[in-house]
C-alpha cells in the first residue's frame, strides 16, 4: 500500500466520510436526488418553453410594422392565437413610404431581416369550392428569413414569380389541387387571377395551412388594389427577447403601429414567467432541504468524531484545520452528489424523452442536457455543501480537545 498522497485536510475528510458509511451514503443519495430534480426540472422547463416559443414564432414575425389604425386593433391581440395579419378589406391601406421604412428597420441594431409583405383577404375558387384565404405577396428571398418556409415545403421550393402561387396542404386538400394545378383567386375588390400552384407547404398549423397563399408582391398589389404599396413590414431580430425593445424604438422612429410577438403573446409570456417562478420556488425548497440534510449529518458526525478531533488537536492540528476538514466534507458531499445528480438527470431525460412523445411520434423534449445548467447545478451544490458545513465545522473547531481526550 502506498503512503497517502492527499493533503492532510482532504485525507482526513475522505476517511471520515468513508468511515461514516451509512450516513455518507444517505446524504449523498439526498444530494444526488435533489440535484437531479433541479437539473431535470430546469432542463425540462427550459426545453418546453423553447419549444413553445419556437412553435409560436415558427410562423410569426418577431416584429410587425403596420399603418396606423384609428381603432379596433384589439381583435387581433388574442394572445393565444397565431396573429394572422389580416386588416379588414375596407381598411386595407399601404404603409406610407414603405421603402424608407424598410431602410429604417434595416438600419436598426439587432435587426436580422426585414421583409415587406402585401397581404389581404381573397377567395380561392375551384369548381364549386370557394375558400376564404389570405393573400401573401412576398419577396421570397426576404420572407424566408422571417418564416423559415424552406423547412416547411412538402413539394416544390419556396420561390414565387409571375402568376405562380404556393399554398398550404390543407387548402390543397380542400380544393382538391396539387402542384401543377391551377386555382382561381378573387380579391374582395373583385379583381381576379388564375394562379399556377408550384409548391405546397405544411407550416404545422392547420389554420395557416388553409389560409396562406403566397404570390409575388406585384400580383398581390394588383389583386388587392394596392398599387406599389405594402400592408405590413415583417422583421426578425437577433434575440427573440429583444423584440419588444426593437419594436418600441421602431415605433418611436417611424410613427407606425409596431408590435412585437411579445405583445401579441403577452399572456403566453406571463404563463411562461409563472412557470419559471414556480420552478425557482421548487429549486429553492430543494436546495434548503439538501442543505439541512448535509448540515444535520455533519453535526452528528462532529459529535461522533469528538475523540478524533481531540487527538488531531493534540498532535498539532489547529482549530482552523479541523474546521477545514468539516467544510471539505460538506463540499465533497455536495460536489459528488451534484455529479451523480447530473448523471441521474441525464438518465431521466433519456428515459422520459423516449417514453413521452408528441402525437406525431417525435419526442416531447430532447434528451439533451445543457452544460450551463449542469455546471451551475454542480457549482451551487458545492457552495451549498460548504455553507451547510459551516455550523458543524465551527462546532468542531470550538471543541475542547481535553474534553474529547478525557471522555
Amino acid at each position, binding site marked *: 500500500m502506498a*503512503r*497517502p498522497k492527499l493533503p492532510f485536510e482532504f485525507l482526513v475528510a475522505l476517511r471520515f466520510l468513508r468511515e461514516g458509511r451509512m450516513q455518507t451514503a444517505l446524504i449523498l443519495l439526498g444530494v444526488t436526488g435533489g440535484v437531479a430534480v433541479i437539473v431535470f426540472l430546469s432542463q425540462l422547463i427550459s426545453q418546453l418553453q423553447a419549444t413553445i416559443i419556437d412553435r409560436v414564432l415558427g410562423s410569426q414575425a418577431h416584429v410587425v410594422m403596420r399603418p396606423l389604425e384609428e381603432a379596433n386593433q384589439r381583435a387581433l391581440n388574442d394572445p393565444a392565437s397565431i396573429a394572422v395579419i389580416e386588416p379588414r378589406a375596407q381598411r386595407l391601406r399601404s404603409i406610407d413610404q414603405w421603402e424608407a421604412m424598410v431602410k429604417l428597420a434595416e438600419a436598426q441594431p439587432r435587426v436580422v431581416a426585414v421583409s415587406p409583405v402585401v397581404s389581404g383577404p381573397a377567395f380561392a375558387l375551384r369548381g364549386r369550392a370557394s375558400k376564404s384565404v389570405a393573400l401573401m405577396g412576398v419577396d421570397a428571398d426576404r420572407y424566408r428569413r422571417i418564416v423559415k418556409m424552406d423547412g416547411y415545403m412538402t413539394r416544390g421550393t419556396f420561390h414565387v414569380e409571375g402568376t405562380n402561387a404556393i399554398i398550404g396542404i390543407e387548402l390543397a386538400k380542400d380544393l382538391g389541387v396539387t402542384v401543377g394545378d391551377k386555382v382561381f383567386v378573387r380579391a374582395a375588390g373583385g379583381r381576379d387571377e388564375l394562379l399556377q400552384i408550384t409548391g405546397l407547404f405544411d407550416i404545422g398549423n392547420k389554420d395557416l395551412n388553409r389560409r396562406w397563399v403566397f404570390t409575388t408582391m406585384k400580383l398581390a398589389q394588383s389583386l388587392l388594389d394596392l398599387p406599389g404599396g405594402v400592408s405590413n413590414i415583417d422583421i426578425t431580430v437577433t434575440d427573440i427577447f429583444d423584440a419588444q425593445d426593437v419594436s418600441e424604438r421602431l415605433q418611436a422612429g417611424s410613427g407606425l403601429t409596431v408590435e412585437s410577438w411579445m405583445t401579441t403573446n403577452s399572456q403566453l409570456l406571463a404563463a411562461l414567467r409563472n412557470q419559471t417562478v414556480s420552478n425557482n420556488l421548487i429549486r429553492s425548497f430543494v436546495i434548503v432541504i439538501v442543505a439541512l440534510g448535509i448540515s444535520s449529518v455533519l453535526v452528528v458526525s462532529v459529535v461522533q468524531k469528538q475523540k478524533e478531533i481531540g487527538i488531531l488537536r493534540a498532535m*498539532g492540528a489547529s482549530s482552523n484545520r479541523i474546521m477545514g476538514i468539516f467544510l471539505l466534507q460538506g463540499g465533497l458531499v455536495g460536489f459528488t452528489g451534484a455529479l451523480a445528480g447530473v448523471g441521474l438527470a441525464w438518465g431521466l431525460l433519456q428515459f422520459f424523452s423516449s417514453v413521452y412523445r408528441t402525437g406525431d411520434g417525435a419526442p416531447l423534449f430532447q434528451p439533451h442536457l445543457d452544460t450551463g445548467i449542469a455546471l451551475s447545478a454542480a457549482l451551487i451544490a458545492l457552495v451549498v455543501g460548504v455553507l451547510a458545513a459551516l455550523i458543524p465545522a465551527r462546532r468542531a473547531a470550538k471543541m475542547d480537545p481535553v474534553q474529547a*481526550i478525557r471522555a
Partner: protein
Amino acid sequence: MTAIVALRDLRKSYGVGTPVETEVLHGIDIELAEGEFCALIGPSGSGKSTLLNLIGLLERPTSGDLAIAGSETAGLNEQALTVLRGRHIGFVFQFHHLLPAFTALENVMMPSIIEQGVATADAEAIAHDLLLRVGLKGHEHKKANQLSGGQQQRVAIARALSRSPRLILADEPTGNLDTHTADDIFALLREFNRERGSACLIVTHDPRLAARCDRRIELVDGRVAHVSSS
C-alpha cells in the same frame, strides 16, 4: 542544563465564574530537565491528568507561568500554542487514542502529515522504522482497531516519537495493560528516552514502574507533596 518544562505557581480552576468554581491545582512549581525521565504519581483525583494537559498546552492555566523549551506560553495565542505543541510535544494517553479510520502506519505518520501538509517519503520511512522498533513489523497496514490493546499502545508510542519531540507526556500509558505488557511498554519509553534524549513525564499508579524513573513527583490534592530522586 536548560529546563524543557518550567512551572511557577501554576494554578487551575474549573467552572471559573460559576457557583461550582473549584481550584484543582493550587500553585505548582516544577522543573523538568532536558532528557529527564520523571514519574508523576498520586491518588486518583489529585490533578495529575490536569497538570499533564496544562503542560501539553491542551488547556490553559488559570494563573501562573508555564514555559516549554524556554518559551513562555502565557502571551501566546491558540495558533502559536498549536505550533509549539506540534514541534516539541508527543502524547501517549491511557486509552491509546489512535485514529480508527487510519492504519497503524498512517497513525504514526499523522503528526508529520499535520506539520508538512502531506505524507512525505521521509515520514513514511521514519514511521516504518518506529513500528519496527516497537515490535509491530507486519502490522503496518492494519487498521488501528484490528490491533490488541498492547499493540495499539505501541503504535501510540511510535506516534508520540515520530517527530522526535523533546518532551513526551504519557498519561497512564500502561494503565490498561497486563503487567507483562506494561513492562514492555515502559521499557520502550525508557529506551527511547535514553537513545534520543527526549524528556518524559509519565503518570503512573504502578510503584514498580515509578521506582524505575529518574525522579518521582507526588501530587496530593493539587499540591506537590513529595519529590524523590533515585
